[in-house]
């Protein structure tokens, strides 16, 4: 239903962009919403979009192609991609167990999935560092087989695993819950093996949710700061994430340079999310065909 399709109630005060309604309070609610959004979101974002160009096009390019900037962007996006990818099967497994099996303490365990949402990132950061440091309980285990976890890109990856898991679990869970059991049962009656049922019935149904979960986890991981900087070690060119580089540039009063990195992050995330949406559309079309 479009606004034009509905005749205005009284003819007075016609607003072409809004449908008439008997409910009051639109000007107040809308006015407050727009003012607040304008001041808190739009104005600051305008600064982020405009300020990099103080450097001129060549200056922006020079900043973007700094070795240190490139390395940090590569690390942030690469580690976020790998962590989100790892979280897809792990999240599916957790969601499956929580929706398909009944066991004592299930609801408590279910509640714990959200802990990374509720635990402040700095707390997670120092706790993960304590665990994966060379003398920590898991870090020492890894050290025995010659893998250094904390203070390397692997540490960044571990922190992003922690941050991203609930996104995948919580997007897949409702889909698994609503999945029509009869279709699965029909497949079983018709002689499908368990693997076939999973691959041909369950997986296509949860695939869109898995992809949304992946993109949510990825988007969060790209910009993550608090849980990463303690465990990363922050060595330039090696384990320095892009958000940290923004902080460093600000500390050197290089506002425009910091804005360049921030804007680049925003653009790359945006492009990645567009690509994910494209994959999802493709899957949806193929499913309908």
């Amino acid at each position: 239903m479009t606004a034009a399709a509905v005749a205005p109630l009284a003819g007075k005060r016609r607003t072409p962009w809004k449908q008439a309604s008997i409910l009051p309070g639109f000007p107040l609610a809308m006015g407050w919403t727009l003012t607040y959004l304008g001041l808190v979101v739009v104005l600051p974002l305008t600064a982020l979009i405009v300020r990099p160009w103080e450097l001129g096009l060549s200056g922006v390019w020079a900043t973007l192609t700094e070795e240190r900037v490139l390395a940090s962007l590569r690390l942030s996006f690469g580690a976020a991609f790998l962590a989100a990818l790892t979280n897809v099967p792990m999240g599916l497994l957790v969601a499956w167990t929580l929706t398909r099996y009944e066991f004592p303490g299930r609801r408590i365990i279910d509640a714990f999935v959200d802990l990374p949402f509720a635990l402040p990132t700095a707390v997670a950061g120092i706790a993960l560092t304590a665990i994966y440091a060379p003398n920590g309980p898991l870090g020492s285990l890894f050290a025995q087989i010659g893998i250094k976890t904390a203070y390397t890109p692997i540490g960044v990856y571990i922190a992003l695993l922690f941050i991203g898991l609930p996104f995948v679990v919580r997007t897949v869970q409702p889909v698994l819950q609503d999945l029509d059991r009869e279709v699965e049962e029909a497949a079983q009656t018709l002689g499908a093996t368990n693997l076939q049922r999973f691959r041909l019935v369950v997986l296509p149904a949860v695939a869109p949710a898995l992809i949304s979960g992946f993109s949510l986890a990825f988007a969060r991981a790209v910009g993550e700061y608090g849980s990463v900087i303690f465990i990363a070690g922050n060595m330039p060119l090696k384990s320095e994430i892009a958000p940290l580089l923004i902080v460093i540039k600000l500390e050197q009063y290089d506002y425009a340079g910091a804005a360049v990195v921030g804007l680049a992050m925003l653009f790359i995330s945006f492009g990645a999310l567009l690509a994910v949406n494209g994959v999802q559309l493709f899957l949806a079309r193929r499913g309908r065909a």
Partner: protein
Amino acid sequence: MTPIIRLPGLAPLMLAATLAILGVLIVLPLGVVFQQAFAKGFAAYLEPLTQPDALSAIRLTLTVAAISVPLNAVFGVAAAWAVARFEFKGKSLLVTFIDLPFSMSPVVSGLVWVLLFGAQGWFGPWLQEHDVKIIFATSGLVLATVLVTLPFVARELIPLMQDQGADEEAAALTLGAGGFTTFWRVTLPNIKWALLYGVLLCNARAMGEFGAVSVVSGSVRGLTTTLPLHVEVLYNDYEFVGAFAAASILACLGLVTLVIKTLLEWRHSGELSAGRRH
């Protein structure tokens, strides 16, 4: 609920794998916070928490949350009223802008305020002339927190109010109730649990926010350090027991949030937006 896939041996295996993933990845870090905090006994745990710096960090965290959370709660209600009760052009664009802060890096959410109000920000010189301090001051912390936590309440209310529809409000108005009475007696009772849910999550994030506030705070010890920043300051000074002691307070905040959130999902699932129902 009976397990539909009957695979002998696989169910226990899946359960074991789930417990391993959640245990190692999620529960272990929580345990480590308390283990490290109490590593040198109870007295050593309490001592750093009674330092003036720690107390002022707790006070500042509470102040910042006490300003930002109500602002975003009022915004959330206003935005939900506009979006869920009226049809207008550009609605999806508006909702995109409301969601936008969720997809921004916390550091960028801090950076944008420095670009506006920092020493070399757009309004920096004017602020300096008039002796107003925003960056490296409480108001900067509030602005950064407000931006980061802006979507929480609106995100809970909009889908719920869209589900509920406007019938009850329309009935109240037809029966002669005024706009304010209708909101107070009809709308608010219908959305109160979802509002509480949103405020709860908003508050947890506001008190625990680190990246955005660290950019605007300048970490002046005892002046502009919130509790999460205080954790960082102590940690970087190798005062590990103190850092984990402060972190344990934040971990408790997270646990309390989780408990209330879970209770709301169990008891009032019908009155939360569909995605929150268990």
